[in-house]
């Protein structure tokens, strides 16, 4: 299986003042990630059928963890499968 990839990582702007709230946007992908869609059909003795569909993501991202030097505490404020947004006060 392939490893996930951080495709880009950007701050909200190029220069922060101490104490100012920073934004970090991390875009990431995983080539192994797949969406499995299953359609189930039920057939009764008369031949009538009914069906339902369900989906599941295979190998979704388990965690996204930014670590900074100097240390700051990043707080996750928004997340999708392929993007995580964090904020932290500039040290």
């Amino acid at each position, binding site marked *: *299986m*392939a*490893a*996930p*990839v*951080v*495709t*880009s*990582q*950007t*701050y909200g*702007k*190029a*220069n*922060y*003042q*101490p*104490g*100012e709230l*920073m934004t*970090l946007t*991390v875009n*990431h992908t*995983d080539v*192994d*990630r797949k969406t499995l869609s299953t359609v189930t059909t039920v057939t009764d003795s008369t031949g009538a059928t009914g069906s339902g569909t369900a989906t599941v993501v295979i*190998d*979704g*991202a*388990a*965690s*996204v*963890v*930014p*670590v*900074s*030097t*100097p240390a*700051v505490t*990043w707080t996750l404020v928004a997340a999708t499968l392929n993007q995580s947004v964090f904020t932290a006060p*500039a*040290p």
Partner: protein
Amino acid sequence: MLSTTTTVTDAGGHTGAGTATVLVAGVDTAALVGGITSTVSANVTHSTAGATFNHVDFNGARVSATTTDLTYNDCIFRGDNSINALFSATNINAKRIVFNRCWFIPKYPLPDKNNIVGHDFWLNDCLVEKGSDNLSIQNSGQYAATGPGWATGVGGRRTVIRRLARWTSATMNLGPGDTVNHADGIQQFGGVGTDFEDSIIDGRPALQFAHLVLQSPTGHVYTEAEAYALADDAPLISVPMGSLANGGPFASPAFDASHPARPLPWVSNGTGLISRGELNSTDYSALMCNSSQGYSAGFRFVNVHWYGGEFCINSGGNQYPAGSGISWGTMTDCRFDRSQGQQGHTVDLQGNWSGHATIPTNGAGANLYFDGTPVTVRF
């Protein structure tokens, strides 16, 4: 620099990572000038004609030019620990000094410290900020030699001049025998032909720097970013006098009848609005015209955006020379904000220049406020 490495771990325990850096405070050399490759920390005089300097950080050093055709590309000028300007082109032999993508910002803010002083310099894509006068245009040698009407040789394209800063001194005067802040974006002492196009000349004071430091009603001293993001009608509260590490800010006692006590680093204009100049008194100008080295005239400003000032453009020290026929200059397609400390004194030539200045306020090339209305001009 803050460096952040982000690790992504999938459900199978596989990891990937990426790293990015950001500057927290200070001078963002990489972003602004493409990266510094050398640093000069001792004062220098450049006297070799035609020399070029690339990606140099004059950090703790002031620079003087005594020759012609110097070119500075992607340099930072921070000056030394004295009241001398960061860059001096006062020598009569200084000609055609060109700055491309340079940043002027004092490392050692001190009373009356200017960023660039002299003549015959040109600014392309530059940022000049936090000086007492950001540009101080003068050429005493040429004036002495040939009298009024000497060519300044000064101009710029796509350049920002902003954030005026005049530190008060421990003697609690803003300057020798004065209680009034006289910081200017550009102060010209004489000469003709100063020429700026597609630029910003901003006569508003620097915040959280020098003597103007604001705090919240609960005593939180704003960061620079917070101060510049204040609501237009935010309460404007100075940090307590003498509370800063440098002993400032300083309240000025009364000096004489025309220089009353200044208990705060600014004088309210009664509007209570930042956009209407509440912080922009006393006596800032985006452009101040004097005539101690002959008349100042022949200005050319095209598509310049002007901000602030107690008077934004003040020619009070530069009267029209009666009978001379000379022109103060031309302004075309300029735009102005309304944050003058003295409301209505935006372009104020104060010197009988009527008929001797081309500053249209309607039609082609009209000079307007940002809201589209004609700028107020007093000739």
